[in-house]
């Protein structure tokens, strides 16, 4: 616990702090580019990219191992990973553009065959006489413990550069995500913007390999944007929020993994991200499950109560149990179903308002379309007192039998 606190407050040493900052920047970049990719409905592409890094990673390891006896050379490994991810990306694009297969099928095919090839290469490595083989598993599930300062610096710098690039391109990305046809009429080359988007995604994946590992890095680009969506309806705010959430997940995950030797970073980052998602999913006041449920119940009650009152006013029988219960609880009817005095007054008001609304809709159909009313909104909240007076003057006399 104390170690974790020291990691959280950046007092666990230079290396750990550097790694934490690098992971936060990476999380932010992943959240940002992930938002755009999500809005472009291509989130699964990141899965294909990440799995396609494995053969390149392994090949780079073999080459570096043959060259200098130790395969662990981060820039070389990242370059290898990037090259094979690019080939994978190209394969996905070509398959979905040139054949009748959809992008999802292309992703499935590319993802599994590249990963399979990578696994074969790893078994080859295990039979070779090179050191640093243990370091390679770190790329599968992520390992920040024992990361060199130079490696952490490389990750942090690259992530910073990516953040800047995404910021510069944010409006083009947004336009293409929302309305690609309109973007073209604005002189935006959608093909180029899409390519840039995927290249930036690829860069995030490759740089994040060491931190979260290639199996879990997808989560970095998907969970934070989805979480952010629970909190806002505005596009660039969602992107900014996803960046914050991604950074928070990186921060929590990396610091947690420094508590004990051997704790894998990737799963912890993803779990931290997932906790944030669950909290938003349940408790977001706008789109969260609880809020939606509560709002639905409230609305249902209002409709029941209103219909009950109208039925009272029109002296129709009420059979619905919930309606009866609500009317009773409000003191509008007695136990035997007969309307009380306040109940009669409320029923008259409800009926009066209903008649005003229908008159308004009849006299001003154009305005009525503009107004937001579900038949439940009090008319005084929508119309001015003068307008209501004018309507009341026009109300036809009540039909026989009304009160």
């Amino acid at each position, binding site marked *: 616990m104390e170690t974790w606190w020291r990691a959280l407050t950046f007092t666990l040493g230079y290396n750990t702090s550097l790694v934490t900052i690098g992971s936060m920047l990476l999380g932010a970049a992943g959240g940002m580019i992930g938002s755009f990719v999500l*809005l472009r*409905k291509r989130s699964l592409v990141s899965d294909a990219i990440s799995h396609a890094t494995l053969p390149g990673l392994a090949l780079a390891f073999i080459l570096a191992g043959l060259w200098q006896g130790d395969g662990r050379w981060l820039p070389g490994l990242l370059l290898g990973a990037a090259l094979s991810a690019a080939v994978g990306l190209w394969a996905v694009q070509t398959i979905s553009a040139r054949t009748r297969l959809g992008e999802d099928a292309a992703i499935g095919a590319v993802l599994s065959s590249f990963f399979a090839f990578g696994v074969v290469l790893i078994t080859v490595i295990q039979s070779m006489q090179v050191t640093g083989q243990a370091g390679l598993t770190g790329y599968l599930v992520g390992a920040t413990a024992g990361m060199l300062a130079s490696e952490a610096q490389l990750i942090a710098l690259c992530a910073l550069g990516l953040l800047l690039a995404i*910021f*510069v*391109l*944010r*409006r083009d990305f*947004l*336009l293409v*995500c*929302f*309305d690609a*046809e*309109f973007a*073209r*009429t*604005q*002189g*935006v080359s959608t093909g180029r913007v899409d390519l840039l988007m995927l290249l930036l995604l690829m860069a995030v994946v490759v740089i994040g390999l060491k931190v979260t590992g290639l199996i879990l890095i997808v989560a970095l680009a998907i969970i934070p944007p989805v979480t952010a*969506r629970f909190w*806002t*309806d*505005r*596009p660039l705010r*969602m992107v900014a929020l996803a960046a914050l959430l991604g950074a928070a997940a990186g921060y929590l995950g990396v610091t947690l993994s420094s508590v004990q030797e051997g704790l894998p970073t990737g799963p912890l980052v993803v779990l931290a991200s997932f906790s944030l998602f669950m909290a938003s999913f349940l408790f977001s006041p706008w789109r969260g499950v609880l809020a939606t449920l509560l709002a639905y119940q409230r609305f249902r009650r209002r409709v029941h109560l209103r219909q009950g009152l109208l039925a009272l006013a029109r002296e129709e029988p009420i059979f619905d149990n919930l309606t009866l219960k609500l009317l009773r609880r409000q003191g509008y009817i007695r136990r035997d179903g007969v309307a009380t005095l306040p109940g009669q007054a409320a029923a008259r008001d409800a009926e009066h308002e209903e008649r005003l609304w229908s008159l308004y809709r009849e006299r001003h*159909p*154009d305005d009525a*379309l*503009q107004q937001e009313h579900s038949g439940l909104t009090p008319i005084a909240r929508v119309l001015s007192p003068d307008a209501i007076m004018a309507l009341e003057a026009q109300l036809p006399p009540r039909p026989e039998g009304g009160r």
Partner: protein
Amino acid sequence: MNRAAWVSEEVAASPLAVQGLTVSYDHRPVVYSVDFVTPPGSMTAIVGPNGAGKSTLLKAAMGITRRLTGDVRVFGRPIEEMSRHIAYVPQRNSIDWDFPATVIDVVAMGLFRNLRWWQFTRRRHREQAMESLARVGMEAFAERQIGQLSGGQQQRVFLARALTQEAELTILDEPFAGVDAATEKAIVEVLKRLREEGRTLLCVHHDLATVRDYFDHVLLLNVRRIAAGPVEEVFTERNLQATYGGRLSTVQLTRLVGDPVAAAQRSE
């Protein structure tokens, strides 16, 4: 041949002129060798049966769809250099309505060409967007997520985005499809006011009954150009019959272009 050779004075004055435009899907031309010069300051309807290539013609002209052949000019210059002069209102079904965007966000997208990457949307941009919203009578909905609007309201929002662009030419793809009568009236009002300001409107339109009321020029299209010009001259029974290939009944035609006998008497 020098491609610019066809740029006459008429073409140089037109906000959108196309020549020899052909678009094909799998060796089947959907728009074939169409020449058309949009008269400046006009309100032109593109009319034709389903599958006549009306939307495709416009999309190809704007570079949304690839064109096989053809040259497109805006005020005599290649359209690629002139895209800021054109505003486009797409068909509603091409939009993801669950997108995290409020009405004001969508309208502000019309400012895309005015904003550089280091700039943020400021109050002045917001006000500009609000002004456009007010012109279509939607300013009360600025903070609403776009999926919570009715079809007609959504259409107005996209019209407001086009207004924000302050373009010389506004291209609309079936703006009245699936909207209520009140919205249709409101949109027509806005479009007519734009024309009074001297702007040009080009509109794919499918309701033959309102062509005469709303538009002053018409392009009759069925893969090929059938006829184009002022509505009174071109919107005739013969041309419509040629456009729709006999798919219109005599009763329909009479209702649209008027009883030929009565029309002849009127003109005397």
